């Protein structure tokens, strides 16, 4: 057979196609075949603990990989393509987004998660369980909310200053608003409440129901939402909010908030425990002047993440051993001291390192306050749409607070947007 140019080219093309096909077929399912890859967000897991895990699980070739940017988007892309997937991945408090698609993951119960279940806060454990009973998430951290306040300014103004006294003065939201009014009379130009958004968010976080039941049915009774809304509007009407609206997403306004912490303009605020790191970092001059106490209205949680194992992991048992060790009650205090991620295991709360007096809080043992709240949090179902719905309500609250929109109009608009959104998503018919 003579090699004509045409034959040569056909052959070359066939070879090329074959090579292309081979490449396409061998794109690996997991990110590092033969290794156990763990995706985590920046500041989502302690690097010190991870470093020790790498040595400890050398046989499994644990490869922690910090995902820059949005972990979720990378995970969705990898899941859609079923390639370059992590063996273990972190999931945020929107874990319910994955409950309908648990076939991509391993049920931790099948790996013996039940044996360590009792070591964790029951409500946190339940938050990682799908309505069908599939254990998707392993607890990483929780976010019990407390009232942070300026002890020095309170006592200077002749107000109750000790945590128990302040907690008694603000035991309900109404008490909190009345007390804030009194404080503002004595300390004009200063605020007790960050914005309407925090009132809404933390008031709703204390309710046993949010927007959906565990079967993803939109609740007929949304009175808890209205209650949180009314409280937020009331705080605004009484002139108690500093109006750093949206302070968590808008970096310009968090600059304002940081400045208000430093200047003492923000006298107190309700927030989950994870704000402590930011507070220490951006207002170092106020060290020793802050205290925390039980928040108005009772215990609530905001935020917190999980670890999950994908079904593409060739050795899920080994992966589970790693997860279990990383988040063991013995390691949680280290993560807390390192990054301020609040432990999900009650047994960690009595760790001597976490029971030490904290100079930033004037020698107060804040763990006592937070741990009590963490234990009292009610289990609540967080649906896949909760974040978007909450954002819709708080957007409208911001319109009330900063653009002078009529609260009733804002409420109607928020309700209408939420229902439109759910209709579009096929949740409401």
């Amino acid at each position, binding site marked *: 057979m003579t090699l004509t140019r045409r034959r040569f080219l056909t052959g070359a093309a066939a070879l090329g196609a074959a090579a292309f096909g081979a490449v396409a077929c061998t794109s690996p399912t997991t990110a590092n075949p033969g290794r156990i890859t763990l995706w985590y967000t920046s500041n989502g897991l302690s690097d010190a603990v991870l470093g020790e895990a790498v040595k400890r699980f050398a046989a499994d070739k644990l490869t922690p990989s910090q995902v820059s940017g949005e972990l979720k988007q990378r995970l969705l892309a990898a899941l859609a393509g079923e390639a370059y997937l992590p063996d273990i991945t972190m999931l945020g408090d929107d874990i319910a987004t994955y409950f309908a*698609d648990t076939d*991509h993951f391993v049920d931790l119960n099948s790996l013996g998660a039940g044996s360590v279940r009792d070591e964790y806060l029951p409500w946190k454990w339940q938050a990682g369980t799908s309505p069908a009973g599939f254990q998707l998430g392993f607890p990483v951290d929780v976010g019990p909310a407390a009232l942070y306040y300026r002890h020095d300014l309170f006592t200077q103004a002749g107000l109750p200053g000790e945590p128990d006294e302040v907690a008694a003065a603000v035991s309900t939201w109404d008490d909190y608003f009345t007390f804030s009014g009194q404080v503002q009379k004595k300390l004009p130009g200063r605020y007790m409440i960050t914005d309407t958004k925090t009132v809404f968010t933390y008031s709703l976080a204390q309710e046993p129901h949010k927007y959906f039941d565990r079967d993803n049915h939109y609740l007929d009774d949304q009175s808890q939402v209205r209650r949180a809304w009314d409280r937020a509007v009331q705080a605004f009407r009484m002139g108690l909010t500093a*109006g750093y609206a949206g302070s968590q997403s*808008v970096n*310009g306004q968090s600059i304002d908030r940081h400045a208000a912490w430093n200047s003492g303009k923000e006298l107190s605020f309700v927030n989950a425990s994870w704000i402590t790191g930011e507070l220490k970092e951006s207002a170092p001059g106020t060290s020793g002047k802050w205290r925390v106490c039980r928040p108005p209205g009772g215990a609530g949680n905001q935020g917190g993440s999980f670890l999950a194992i994908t079904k593409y992991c060739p050795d899920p048992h080994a992966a589970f051993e790693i997860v279990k060790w990383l988040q063991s009650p013995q390691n949680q205090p280290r993560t807390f001291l390192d990054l301020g991620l609040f432990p999900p295991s009650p047994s960690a709360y009595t760790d001597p390192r976490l029971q030490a007096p904290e100079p930033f809080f004037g020698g107060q043992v804040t763990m006592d306050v937070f741990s009590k709240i963490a234990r009292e949090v009610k289990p609540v179902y967080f649906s896949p749409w909760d974040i978007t719905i909450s954002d819709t309500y708080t957007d409208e609250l911001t319109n009330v*607070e900063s653009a002078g929109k009529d609260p009733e109009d804002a409420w109607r608009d928020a309700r209408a947007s939420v229902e439109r959104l759910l209709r*579009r998503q096929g949740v409401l018919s």
Partner: protein
Amino acid sequence: MTAILPAETAGASRAPVRHTAHGRRKRWRYLPQYLAVAPFFVLFAIFGAYPVLYSLYLALQRWDGVGPMKFVGLENFAFLLSDTTFWDSIGNTLIIWVMSTVPMTAFALLIAAGLNSSVRYKGLLRVAYFLPNVTSIVAMSLVFGSIFSDEFGILNWFLGLFGIGNVDWLSDPWAIRGAISIMIIWRWTGYNAIIFLAGLQALPPDVFEAARIDGAGPVQTFFRITLPLLRPVLLFSVVMSAINGLQIFTESQVLLGNRGGPGGAGMTMVLYFYNTAFADNDFGYGAAIAWGIFVVVVLFSILNWRLVMRPERGQVQTKGAGR
């Protein structure tokens, strides 16, 4: 005629065979050329055409990014038409575009005219004016975040020196649009100034000389001679800024977050698309928004096309009349 016809058909019966064989050889002969242009088309097919077609397919589905897709037909588009947020985002984009383009063009013209006259350190100044354009937008937005900060921002402090009260740059709807526009102006003025400068330097000097002899002052020369002659360059700059302006995203997102800030005043079209698809995980509707943006861009391009074409027709006519 009749004598020729049969001969032709006879020839035609044999001709096709030879013709195709010849054609095939001809086609193979051009293979290297086809191969040479192939990389672009292969890459375009994978990274350009496929995503475009796939987004059209996605726009007909309901999909959260993980689970199975659900076909919903034109529902997403029907929803888009009645979606006030989408219409608001078009409005915001156009408002920000106008608020940024008009002052930017004026500033750029002034700077170009200044650079064109004999000043010292011309090269250094040109580089300095161009620098904002190559600065990372994210870094820039962080800096502007502290500048525009409502209570403790540098800008409000500076305005305070002149007795001007605090402007809520990041909470008032119009101030938000102003803040984003200022960032765009800062970023693109230098770029356009350099383009205008190139245009100015290409203008024939004899026209200006004639104007001077006729006794025109500098202001008169600028408005009567320079500006009309610079028209093609100005149009280019407006078209370019329209292309960029319709895609405003990073400034809003970094300064105000995914939801466009208070009142959604900074919610631009692309930001709304991003927020829907990648923050709310609604990829089907996100794709529908993307096609909505496409339609707006097409309409705008037609508008631009007419703007650009008209003066050329005018020029041809005047040229014809001159002869």
